[in-house]
Protein backbone atom coordinates (compact mmCIF):
# COMPACT_ATOMS: atom_id res chain seq x y z
CA UNK A 1 0.00 0.00 0.00
CA UNK A 2 2.75 2.36 0.96
CA UNK A 3 4.59 1.70 -2.28
CA UNK A 4 1.42 2.42 -4.20
CA UNK A 5 1.00 5.74 -2.43
CA UNK A 6 4.62 6.80 -2.83
CA UNK A 7 4.29 8.32 -6.32
CA UNK A 8 1.20 10.15 -5.08
CA UNK A 9 3.28 11.73 -2.36
CA UNK A 10 5.96 13.04 -4.68
CA UNK A 11 3.41 14.55 -7.05
CA UNK A 12 0.90 15.52 -4.41
CA UNK A 13 0.56 19.08 -5.66
CA UNK A 14 -0.30 18.01 -9.19
CA UNK A 15 -2.66 15.37 -7.85
CA UNK A 16 -4.33 18.01 -5.71
CA UNK A 17 -4.67 20.38 -8.64
CA UNK A 18 -6.21 17.64 -10.75
CA UNK A 19 -8.61 16.74 -7.95
CA UNK A 20 -9.73 20.36 -7.61
CA UNK A 21 -10.16 20.65 -11.38
CA UNK A 22 -12.22 17.44 -11.45
CA UNK A 23 -14.41 18.77 -8.63
CA UNK A 24 -14.96 21.99 -10.58
CA UNK A 25 -15.93 20.14 -13.74
CA UNK A 26 -18.28 17.92 -11.72
CA UNK A 27 -19.94 21.03 -10.31
CA UNK A 28 -20.54 22.41 -13.80
CA UNK A 29 -22.85 19.49 -14.58
CA UNK A 30 -25.30 20.64 -11.92
CA UNK A 31 -26.54 23.46 -14.11
CA UNK A 32 -28.55 22.83 -17.24
CA UNK A 33 -26.86 25.27 -19.56
CA UNK A 34 -29.40 26.98 -21.76
CA UNK A 35 -30.80 30.41 -22.50
CA UNK A 36 -33.41 29.90 -19.81
CA UNK A 37 -30.85 30.80 -17.14
CA UNK A 38 -31.22 34.51 -17.85
CA UNK A 39 -34.39 36.51 -17.25
CA UNK A 40 -36.17 37.79 -20.31
CA UNK A 41 -35.18 41.36 -19.46
CA UNK A 42 -31.76 40.39 -18.15
CA UNK A 43 -29.71 42.16 -20.75
CA UNK A 44 -31.54 45.50 -20.44
CA UNK A 45 -31.19 45.31 -16.65
CA UNK A 46 -27.45 44.77 -16.99
CA UNK A 47 -27.19 47.83 -19.23
CA UNK A 48 -29.21 49.89 -16.75
CA UNK A 49 -27.01 48.78 -13.85
CA UNK A 50 -23.87 49.88 -15.68
CA UNK A 51 -25.49 53.17 -16.67
CA UNK A 52 -25.85 53.76 -12.92
CA UNK A 53 -22.11 53.19 -12.53
CA UNK A 54 -21.33 56.03 -14.91
CA UNK A 55 -23.92 58.38 -13.39
CA UNK A 56 -24.25 57.61 -9.67
CA UNK A 57 -26.88 59.66 -7.84
CA UNK A 58 -24.92 62.36 -6.01
CA UNK A 59 -27.82 64.54 -4.90
CA UNK A 60 -27.35 66.01 -1.40
CA UNK A 61 -30.11 63.94 0.23
CA UNK A 62 -28.66 60.67 -1.00
CA UNK A 63 -25.12 61.62 0.03
CA UNK A 64 -26.35 62.67 3.49
CA UNK A 65 -28.23 59.40 3.80
CA UNK A 66 -25.14 57.50 2.68
CA UNK A 67 -22.95 59.23 5.27
CA UNK A 68 -25.45 58.49 8.01
CA UNK A 69 -25.79 54.84 7.09
CA UNK A 70 -22.02 54.52 6.74
CA UNK A 71 -21.74 55.67 10.34
CA UNK A 72 -24.34 53.10 11.45
CA UNK A 73 -22.38 50.42 9.60
CA UNK A 74 -19.17 51.42 11.38
CA UNK A 75 -21.02 51.51 14.72
CA UNK A 76 -22.23 47.94 14.36
CA UNK A 77 -18.81 46.79 13.23
CA UNK A 78 -17.00 48.40 16.18
CA UNK A 79 -19.48 47.25 18.81
CA UNK A 80 -19.57 43.78 17.27
CA UNK A 81 -15.78 43.60 17.39
CA UNK A 82 -15.85 44.59 21.08
CA UNK A 83 -18.09 41.63 21.86
CA UNK A 84 -15.96 39.43 19.61
CA UNK A 85 -12.78 40.36 21.46
CA UNK A 86 -14.35 39.63 24.84
CA UNK A 87 -15.52 36.20 23.63
CA UNK A 88 -12.15 35.57 21.98
CA UNK A 89 -10.20 36.34 25.14
CA UNK A 90 -12.33 34.21 27.44
CA UNK A 91 -12.67 31.19 25.18
CA UNK A 92 -9.32 31.55 23.43
CA UNK A 93 -7.33 31.55 26.66
CA UNK A 94 -9.36 28.69 28.12
CA UNK A 95 -9.15 26.84 24.80
CA UNK A 96 -5.37 27.17 24.64
CA UNK A 97 -5.20 25.17 27.88
CA UNK A 98 -2.30 27.12 29.40
CA UNK A 99 -4.20 27.85 32.61
CA UNK A 100 -4.63 24.21 33.58
CA UNK A 101 -1.88 22.31 35.31
CA UNK A 102 -2.99 18.69 35.06
CA UNK A 103 -2.70 17.08 31.66
CA UNK A 104 -6.14 15.40 31.64
CA UNK A 105 -7.99 18.59 32.57
CA UNK A 106 -6.09 20.49 29.90
CA UNK A 107 -7.02 18.04 27.15
CA UNK A 108 -10.68 18.02 28.18
CA UNK A 109 -10.85 21.83 28.48
CA UNK A 110 -9.14 22.32 25.12
CA UNK A 111 -11.61 19.94 23.50
CA UNK A 112 -14.64 21.62 25.03
CA UNK A 113 -13.68 25.27 24.47
CA UNK A 114 -12.22 24.74 21.01
CA UNK A 115 -15.37 22.80 20.12
CA UNK A 116 -17.51 25.74 21.25
CA UNK A 117 -15.39 28.14 19.21
CA UNK A 118 -15.61 25.89 16.14
CA UNK A 119 -19.38 25.65 16.39
CA UNK A 120 -20.07 29.34 16.85
CA UNK A 121 -17.83 30.29 13.96
CA UNK A 122 -19.25 27.64 11.63
CA UNK A 123 -22.56 29.51 11.53
CA UNK A 124 -22.48 32.58 9.34
CA UNK A 125 -23.14 35.97 10.96
CA UNK A 126 -26.26 36.51 8.89
CA UNK A 127 -27.75 33.27 10.14
CA UNK A 128 -27.01 34.41 13.67
CA UNK A 129 -28.69 37.70 12.83
CA UNK A 130 -31.84 35.95 11.62
CA UNK A 131 -31.95 33.83 14.77
CA UNK A 132 -31.40 36.85 17.03
CA UNK A 133 -34.04 38.92 15.28
CA UNK A 134 -36.47 36.05 15.74
CA UNK A 135 -35.77 36.08 19.47
CA UNK A 136 -35.10 39.69 20.55
CA UNK A 137 -36.61 41.62 17.66
CA UNK A 138 -35.05 44.46 15.70
CA UNK A 139 -32.85 45.72 18.52
CA UNK A 140 -29.33 46.96 17.68
CA UNK A 141 -28.08 44.28 20.05
CA UNK A 142 -29.25 41.67 17.56
CA UNK A 143 -26.69 43.06 15.11
CA UNK A 144 -24.01 43.45 17.77
CA UNK A 145 -24.28 39.87 18.95
CA UNK A 146 -24.81 38.44 15.49
CA UNK A 147 -21.51 40.02 14.46
CA UNK A 148 -19.70 39.43 17.73
CA UNK A 149 -20.38 35.73 18.18
CA UNK A 150 -18.97 34.28 14.93
CA UNK A 151 -16.11 36.78 14.89
CA UNK A 152 -15.39 35.85 18.50
CA UNK A 153 -15.17 32.24 17.34
CA UNK A 154 -12.64 33.07 14.64
CA UNK A 155 -10.54 35.42 16.79
CA UNK A 156 -10.66 33.01 19.74
CA UNK A 157 -9.37 30.13 17.65
CA UNK A 158 -6.56 32.28 16.28
CA UNK A 159 -5.67 33.49 19.78
CA UNK A 160 -5.60 29.93 21.09
CA UNK A 161 -3.39 28.82 18.18
CA UNK A 162 -1.05 31.77 18.68
CA UNK A 163 -0.73 31.07 22.41
CA UNK A 164 0.06 27.43 21.67
CA UNK A 165 2.69 28.43 19.11
CA UNK A 166 4.59 30.69 21.51
CA UNK A 167 8.25 29.61 21.90
CA UNK A 168 8.74 27.46 25.01
CA UNK A 169 11.90 29.05 26.44
CA UNK A 170 10.56 32.36 27.83
CA UNK A 171 7.71 30.50 29.49
CA UNK A 172 10.04 27.94 31.03
CA UNK A 173 12.15 30.80 32.36
CA UNK A 174 9.08 32.32 33.97
CA UNK A 175 8.05 28.97 35.44
CA UNK A 176 11.54 28.43 36.82
CA UNK A 177 11.38 31.84 38.46
CA UNK A 178 8.27 30.65 40.29
CA UNK A 179 5.51 32.30 38.30
CA UNK A 180 2.04 30.83 38.61
CA UNK A 181 0.03 29.78 35.56
CA UNK A 182 -1.87 33.07 35.60
CA UNK A 183 1.34 35.08 35.86
CA UNK A 184 2.79 33.07 32.97
CA UNK A 185 -0.25 34.06 30.93
CA UNK A 186 -0.08 37.74 31.85
CA UNK A 187 3.67 38.23 31.57
CA UNK A 188 4.65 35.47 29.14
CA UNK A 189 2.01 34.43 26.64
CA UNK A 190 -0.03 37.59 26.19
CA UNK A 191 2.86 40.02 25.56
CA UNK A 192 4.32 37.54 23.06
CA UNK A 193 1.13 37.26 21.00
CA UNK A 194 0.13 40.93 21.29
CA UNK A 195 1.51 42.27 18.00
CA UNK A 196 0.20 39.39 15.91
CA UNK A 197 -3.15 39.50 17.62
CA UNK A 198 -3.57 43.23 16.99
CA UNK A 199 -2.71 42.84 13.33
CA UNK A 200 -5.14 39.96 12.93
CA UNK A 201 -7.85 41.90 14.76
CA UNK A 202 -7.36 44.82 12.39
CA UNK A 203 -7.74 42.50 9.42
CA UNK A 204 -10.93 41.07 10.92
CA UNK A 205 -12.20 44.59 11.60
CA UNK A 206 -12.09 45.26 7.88
CA UNK A 207 -14.13 42.08 7.30
CA UNK A 208 -16.58 43.07 10.00
CA UNK A 209 -17.37 46.32 8.17
CA UNK A 210 -18.50 44.28 5.20
CA UNK A 211 -20.47 41.92 7.40
CA UNK A 212 -22.10 44.77 9.25
CA UNK A 213 -23.14 46.28 5.94
CA UNK A 214 -25.04 43.12 5.04
CA UNK A 215 -26.46 42.81 8.57
CA UNK A 216 -29.08 45.26 7.44
CA UNK A 217 -30.44 42.59 5.15
CA UNK A 218 -32.45 41.30 8.09
CA UNK A 219 -33.79 44.80 8.74
CA UNK A 220 -31.13 46.39 10.94
CA UNK A 221 -30.16 49.78 9.43
CA UNK A 222 -26.91 50.57 7.68
CA UNK A 223 -25.54 50.73 4.16
CA UNK A 224 -26.87 47.33 3.11
CA UNK A 225 -30.38 48.35 4.08
CA UNK A 226 -30.20 51.41 1.83
CA UNK A 227 -28.75 49.31 -0.98
CA UNK A 228 -31.61 46.87 -0.61
CA UNK A 229 -34.23 49.65 -0.59
CA UNK A 230 -32.77 51.31 -3.68
CA UNK A 231 -32.57 47.96 -5.45
CA UNK A 232 -36.24 47.27 -4.75
CA UNK A 233 -37.05 50.70 -6.19
CA UNK A 234 -34.83 49.85 -9.19
CA UNK A 235 -32.78 53.02 -8.55
CA UNK A 236 -29.44 51.62 -9.66
CA UNK A 237 -27.78 55.04 -9.57
CA UNK A 238 -28.44 55.25 -5.80
CA UNK A 239 -27.14 51.71 -5.33
CA UNK A 240 -23.84 52.78 -6.83
CA UNK A 241 -23.58 55.80 -4.50
CA UNK A 242 -23.98 53.56 -1.47
CA UNK A 243 -21.56 51.01 -2.90
CA UNK A 244 -18.94 53.73 -3.39
CA UNK A 245 -19.32 54.73 0.25
CA UNK A 246 -18.92 51.11 1.33
CA UNK A 247 -15.82 50.72 -0.81
CA UNK A 248 -14.41 53.96 0.59
CA UNK A 249 -14.79 52.78 4.20
CA UNK A 250 -13.24 49.40 3.44
CA UNK A 251 -10.31 50.98 1.59
CA UNK A 252 -9.73 53.50 4.40
CA UNK A 253 -9.69 50.82 7.07
CA UNK A 254 -7.52 48.62 4.89
CA UNK A 255 -4.98 51.44 4.55
CA UNK A 256 -5.08 52.14 8.27
CA UNK A 257 -4.58 48.50 9.25
CA UNK A 258 -1.83 48.03 6.67
CA UNK A 259 0.23 50.93 7.94
CA UNK A 260 -0.38 49.93 11.55
CA UNK A 261 0.62 46.34 10.82
CA UNK A 262 3.85 47.41 9.18
CA UNK A 263 4.79 49.43 12.25
CA UNK A 264 3.83 46.70 14.70
CA UNK A 265 5.35 43.63 13.10
CA UNK A 266 8.58 45.10 11.78
Amino acid at each position, binding site marked *: MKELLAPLKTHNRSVLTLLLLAAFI*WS*LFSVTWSRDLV*HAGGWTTTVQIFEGLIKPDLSPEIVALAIESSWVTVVYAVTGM*TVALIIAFIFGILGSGVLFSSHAVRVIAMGIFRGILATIRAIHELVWALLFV*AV*IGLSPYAAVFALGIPYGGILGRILADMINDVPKEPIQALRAAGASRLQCLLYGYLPLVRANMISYTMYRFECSIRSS*AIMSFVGLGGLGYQIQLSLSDLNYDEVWTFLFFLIAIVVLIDAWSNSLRK*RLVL
Partner: protein
Amino acid sequence: MKNKVQIPRKKRRFSFVSFSILLVFALLAGSWGHILFIERAHFFELFNERNLEYAKKFFSGLFGFQEEKPAFVDKESWKNAIQLTYETLQMSVMALGFATIVAMLTVIPASRTIADGTLTVSKRWYHWILFGIIRGLYIFSRAVPELVFAMVIVFIFKPGILPGAIALALHNFGIIGKLCAEVIEDTDARPIRNLASAGASNAQILFYGIIPAVMPKFLTYILYRGEVIMRTSIVVGFVGAGGLGQQFKLSLSYFHYTEITLLLICYIILVFIADFISEGFRKAAR
Protein backbone atom coordinates in the same frame (compact mmCIF):
# COMPACT_ATOMS: atom_id res chain seq x y z
CA MET B 1 24.60 62.11 10.61
CA LYS B 2 22.99 58.72 10.99
CA ASN B 3 21.33 59.63 14.25
CA LYS B 4 19.85 62.76 12.77
CA VAL B 5 18.06 60.72 10.14
CA GLN B 6 16.82 58.08 12.52
CA ILE B 7 15.35 60.20 15.29
CA PRO B 8 12.50 61.86 13.40
CA ARG B 9 11.55 58.53 11.89
CA LYS B 10 11.20 56.93 15.26
CA LYS B 11 9.13 59.83 16.48
CA ARG B 12 6.73 59.53 13.56
CA ARG B 13 6.32 55.82 14.13
CA PHE B 14 5.44 56.40 17.75
CA SER B 15 2.94 59.11 16.93
CA PHE B 16 1.17 56.96 14.36
CA VAL B 17 0.69 54.16 16.84
CA SER B 18 -0.62 56.53 19.51
CA PHE B 19 -2.87 58.14 16.93
CA SER B 20 -4.26 54.69 16.17
CA ILE B 21 -4.85 54.01 19.84
CA LEU B 22 -6.70 57.31 20.17
CA LEU B 23 -8.74 56.51 17.08
CA VAL B 24 -9.67 53.12 18.48
CA PHE B 25 -10.88 54.68 21.72
CA ALA B 26 -12.77 57.39 19.85
CA LEU B 27 -14.45 54.78 17.66
CA LEU B 28 -15.33 52.66 20.69
CA ALA B 29 -16.79 55.60 22.60
CA GLY B 30 -18.66 56.91 19.57
CA SER B 31 -20.11 53.54 18.61
CA TRP B 32 -21.23 52.45 22.05
CA GLY B 33 -22.51 55.98 22.66
CA HIS B 34 -24.52 55.75 19.46
CA ILE B 35 -26.01 52.42 20.46
CA LEU B 36 -26.75 53.42 24.06
CA PHE B 37 -27.86 57.03 23.74
CA ILE B 38 -28.98 57.70 20.18
CA GLU B 39 -30.70 54.40 19.48
CA ARG B 40 -31.61 54.16 23.19
CA ALA B 41 -31.06 50.45 23.26
CA HIS B 42 -30.56 49.21 26.77
CA PHE B 43 -29.03 45.87 27.28
CA PHE B 44 -31.07 44.84 30.30
CA GLU B 45 -34.34 45.79 28.68
CA LEU B 46 -33.77 42.85 26.37
CA PHE B 47 -34.59 40.50 29.20
CA ASN B 48 -38.24 41.45 29.45
CA GLU B 49 -41.17 39.10 29.53
CA ARG B 50 -42.13 39.59 25.92
CA ASN B 51 -38.70 38.60 24.64
CA LEU B 52 -38.63 35.69 27.07
CA GLU B 53 -41.92 34.53 25.61
CA TYR B 54 -40.57 34.84 22.06
CA ALA B 55 -37.40 33.03 22.96
CA LYS B 56 -39.33 30.24 24.62
CA LYS B 57 -41.59 29.88 21.62
CA PHE B 58 -38.69 30.01 19.21
CA PHE B 59 -36.51 27.46 20.94
CA SER B 60 -39.31 25.04 21.71
CA GLY B 61 -40.20 25.44 18.04
CA LEU B 62 -36.62 24.66 17.03
CA PHE B 63 -36.55 21.49 19.11
CA GLY B 64 -39.99 20.53 17.86
CA PHE B 65 -41.76 20.21 21.21
CA GLN B 66 -45.16 21.27 19.88
CA GLU B 67 -45.09 19.43 16.62
CA GLU B 68 -46.23 15.88 16.28
CA LYS B 69 -43.75 15.16 13.55
CA PRO B 70 -40.62 17.34 13.66
CA ALA B 71 -38.79 17.62 10.37
CA PHE B 72 -35.57 16.14 11.71
CA VAL B 73 -37.14 12.73 12.34
CA ASP B 74 -38.97 12.78 9.03
CA LYS B 75 -37.33 10.74 6.28
CA GLU B 76 -38.70 12.86 3.45
CA SER B 77 -37.36 16.11 4.92
CA TRP B 78 -33.94 14.57 5.44
CA LYS B 79 -33.87 13.50 1.81
CA ASN B 80 -34.80 17.03 0.75
CA ALA B 81 -32.23 18.62 3.04
CA ILE B 82 -29.45 16.33 1.84
CA GLN B 83 -30.34 17.15 -1.75
CA LEU B 84 -30.07 20.86 -0.87
CA THR B 85 -26.76 20.30 0.89
CA TYR B 86 -25.45 18.56 -2.21
CA GLU B 87 -26.57 21.54 -4.33
CA THR B 88 -24.89 23.95 -1.94
CA LEU B 89 -21.69 21.97 -2.17
CA GLN B 90 -21.83 22.10 -5.96
CA MET B 91 -22.51 25.82 -5.83
CA SER B 92 -19.49 26.45 -3.62
CA VAL B 93 -17.17 24.34 -5.74
CA MET B 94 -18.38 26.09 -8.88
CA ALA B 95 -17.91 29.49 -7.23
CA LEU B 96 -14.38 28.58 -6.19
CA GLY B 97 -13.66 27.40 -9.72
CA PHE B 98 -14.93 30.59 -11.36
CA ALA B 99 -13.11 32.78 -8.85
CA THR B 100 -9.85 30.88 -9.31
CA ILE B 101 -10.02 31.00 -13.10
CA VAL B 102 -10.62 34.75 -13.17
CA ALA B 103 -7.98 35.39 -10.52
CA MET B 104 -5.38 33.26 -12.33
CA LEU B 105 -6.05 35.04 -15.62
CA THR B 106 -5.44 38.42 -14.03
CA VAL B 107 -2.93 37.73 -11.30
CA ILE B 108 0.29 38.11 -13.28
CA PRO B 109 -0.16 41.69 -14.48
CA ALA B 110 -1.55 42.52 -11.01
CA SER B 111 1.70 41.94 -9.15
CA ARG B 112 3.92 44.91 -8.57
CA THR B 113 7.18 43.15 -9.45
CA ILE B 114 5.85 42.31 -12.92
CA ALA B 115 4.44 45.79 -13.45
CA ASP B 116 7.74 47.55 -12.73
CA GLY B 117 9.65 44.91 -14.67
CA THR B 118 12.01 43.80 -11.88
CA LEU B 119 10.91 40.19 -12.10
CA THR B 120 11.13 39.56 -15.82
CA VAL B 121 13.65 42.27 -16.76
CA SER B 122 11.29 43.60 -19.38
CA LYS B 123 9.34 46.82 -19.28
CA ARG B 124 6.27 47.70 -21.28
CA TRP B 125 4.40 50.96 -21.20
CA TYR B 126 1.05 49.29 -20.65
CA HIS B 127 2.14 47.27 -17.60
CA TRP B 128 1.30 49.96 -15.07
CA ILE B 129 -2.08 50.69 -16.70
CA LEU B 130 -3.01 47.01 -16.56
CA PHE B 131 -1.79 46.87 -12.97
CA GLY B 132 -3.99 49.82 -12.00
CA ILE B 133 -7.10 48.51 -13.72
CA ILE B 134 -6.82 45.01 -12.30
CA ARG B 135 -5.99 46.20 -8.79
CA GLY B 136 -8.99 48.53 -8.95
CA LEU B 137 -11.19 45.59 -9.96
CA TYR B 138 -9.78 43.55 -7.07
CA ILE B 139 -10.56 46.31 -4.58
CA PHE B 140 -14.09 46.64 -5.93
CA SER B 141 -14.71 42.91 -5.77
CA ARG B 142 -13.25 42.65 -2.26
CA ALA B 143 -15.18 45.59 -0.83
CA VAL B 144 -18.64 44.61 -2.04
CA PRO B 145 -20.12 41.76 0.03
CA GLU B 146 -21.30 38.63 -1.76
CA LEU B 147 -24.86 39.25 -0.61
CA VAL B 148 -25.01 42.56 -2.45
CA PHE B 149 -23.65 40.89 -5.58
CA ALA B 150 -26.29 38.20 -5.16
CA MET B 151 -29.07 40.77 -4.76
CA VAL B 152 -28.07 42.39 -8.05
CA ILE B 153 -27.46 39.13 -9.91
CA VAL B 154 -30.88 37.64 -9.20
CA PHE B 155 -32.19 40.57 -11.25
CA ILE B 156 -30.34 39.19 -14.24
CA PHE B 157 -30.28 35.43 -13.76
CA LYS B 158 -33.16 33.21 -12.79
CA PRO B 159 -32.97 31.78 -9.26
CA GLY B 160 -30.88 28.65 -9.01
CA ILE B 161 -27.33 27.54 -8.33
CA LEU B 162 -25.66 29.57 -11.05
CA PRO B 163 -26.46 33.11 -9.76
CA GLY B 164 -25.30 32.08 -6.28
CA ALA B 165 -22.06 30.70 -7.66
CA ILE B 166 -21.45 33.86 -9.71
CA ALA B 167 -22.13 36.12 -6.73
CA LEU B 168 -19.72 34.16 -4.54
CA ALA B 169 -17.12 34.11 -7.31
CA LEU B 170 -17.39 37.87 -7.90
CA HIS B 171 -16.58 38.59 -4.29
CA ASN B 172 -13.83 36.00 -3.95
CA PHE B 173 -11.84 36.51 -7.13
CA GLY B 174 -10.60 39.83 -5.78
CA ILE B 175 -9.45 38.24 -2.54
CA ILE B 176 -7.75 35.28 -4.24
CA GLY B 177 -6.21 37.65 -6.79
CA LYS B 178 -4.85 40.00 -4.15
CA LEU B 179 -3.41 37.22 -1.99
CA CYS B 180 -1.83 35.49 -5.00
CA ALA B 181 -0.42 38.71 -6.43
CA GLU B 182 1.29 39.27 -3.10
CA VAL B 183 2.73 35.76 -3.30
CA ILE B 184 4.24 36.58 -6.71
CA GLU B 185 5.64 39.82 -5.30
CA ASP B 186 7.29 37.89 -2.47
CA THR B 187 8.90 35.18 -4.61
CA ASP B 188 12.62 35.08 -5.03
CA ALA B 189 13.27 37.04 -8.22
CA ARG B 190 16.73 35.62 -8.97
CA PRO B 191 15.83 32.27 -10.60
CA ILE B 192 13.21 33.97 -12.75
CA ARG B 193 15.54 36.73 -13.86
CA ASN B 194 18.05 34.03 -14.67
CA LEU B 195 15.53 32.39 -16.97
CA ALA B 196 14.73 35.73 -18.58
CA SER B 197 18.35 36.56 -19.25
CA ALA B 198 18.90 33.07 -20.69
CA GLY B 199 16.35 34.03 -23.34
CA ALA B 200 13.18 32.36 -22.14
CA SER B 201 9.95 33.61 -23.68
CA ASN B 202 7.15 34.98 -21.52
CA ALA B 203 5.29 31.68 -21.59
CA GLN B 204 8.43 29.80 -20.62
CA ILE B 205 9.08 32.17 -17.75
CA LEU B 206 5.51 31.60 -16.59
CA PHE B 207 5.62 27.80 -16.76
CA TYR B 208 9.17 27.12 -15.61
CA GLY B 209 9.82 30.09 -13.36
CA ILE B 210 6.74 31.52 -11.72
CA ILE B 211 4.26 28.65 -11.48
CA PRO B 212 6.52 26.12 -9.71
CA ALA B 213 7.60 28.76 -7.21
CA VAL B 214 4.14 30.00 -6.27
CA MET B 215 2.04 26.83 -6.65
CA PRO B 216 2.07 25.64 -3.02
CA LYS B 217 1.02 29.02 -1.63
CA PHE B 218 -1.61 29.49 -4.32
CA LEU B 219 -3.15 26.12 -3.47
CA THR B 220 -3.18 27.01 0.21
CA TYR B 221 -4.98 30.28 -0.40
CA ILE B 222 -7.46 28.73 -2.83
CA LEU B 223 -8.34 26.02 -0.34
CA TYR B 224 -8.64 28.58 2.43
CA ARG B 225 -11.07 30.61 0.35
CA GLY B 226 -12.94 27.41 -0.46
CA GLU B 227 -13.58 26.98 3.24
CA VAL B 228 -14.90 30.53 3.51
CA ILE B 229 -17.07 30.14 0.40
CA MET B 230 -18.62 27.02 1.88
CA ARG B 231 -19.53 29.01 4.98
CA THR B 232 -20.99 31.92 3.01
CA SER B 233 -22.86 29.79 0.49
CA ILE B 234 -25.88 29.73 2.80
CA VAL B 235 -26.07 33.53 2.76
CA VAL B 236 -26.44 34.07 -0.98
CA GLY B 237 -29.40 31.72 -0.85
CA PHE B 238 -31.28 34.20 1.33
CA VAL B 239 -31.96 36.45 -1.64
CA GLY B 240 -33.07 33.56 -3.82
CA ALA B 241 -29.81 32.30 -5.24
CA GLY B 242 -30.51 28.66 -4.46
CA GLY B 243 -29.12 26.06 -2.08
CA LEU B 244 -29.64 25.66 1.64
CA GLY B 245 -30.05 29.37 2.26
CA GLN B 246 -33.12 29.73 0.09
CA GLN B 247 -34.91 26.93 1.89
CA PHE B 248 -33.74 28.34 5.24
CA LYS B 249 -35.28 31.71 4.48
CA LEU B 250 -38.51 30.10 3.27
CA SER B 251 -38.82 27.92 6.35
CA LEU B 252 -38.22 30.93 8.56
CA SER B 253 -40.96 32.87 6.76
CA TYR B 254 -43.40 29.98 7.09
CA PHE B 255 -42.43 29.44 10.76
CA HIS B 256 -41.42 25.83 10.02
CA TYR B 257 -38.99 25.84 12.90
CA THR B 258 -38.07 22.17 12.92
CA GLU B 259 -37.02 22.45 9.29
CA ILE B 260 -34.67 25.24 10.33
CA THR B 261 -33.06 22.94 12.87
CA LEU B 262 -32.61 20.28 10.23
CA LEU B 263 -31.12 22.73 7.72
CA LEU B 264 -28.80 24.15 10.36
CA ILE B 265 -27.58 20.65 11.23
CA CYS B 266 -26.87 19.92 7.56
CA TYR B 267 -25.13 23.28 7.14
CA ILE B 268 -22.88 22.83 10.16
CA ILE B 269 -21.96 19.31 9.07
CA LEU B 270 -21.14 20.60 5.59
CA VAL B 271 -18.91 23.36 7.00
CA PHE B 272 -17.12 20.95 9.32
CA ILE B 273 -16.47 18.44 6.53
CA ALA B 274 -15.23 21.22 4.26
CA ASP B 275 -12.90 22.49 7.01
CA PHE B 276 -11.58 19.01 7.59
CA ILE B 277 -10.95 18.24 3.90
CA SER B 278 -9.39 21.59 3.20
CA GLU B 279 -7.07 21.26 6.18
CA GLY B 280 -5.94 17.83 4.96
CA PHE B 281 -5.39 19.13 1.43
CA ARG B 282 -3.46 22.11 2.70
CA LYS B 283 -1.10 19.83 4.55
CA ALA B 284 -0.60 17.85 1.33
CA ALA B 285 0.07 21.02 -0.65
CA ARG B 286 2.91 22.11 1.55
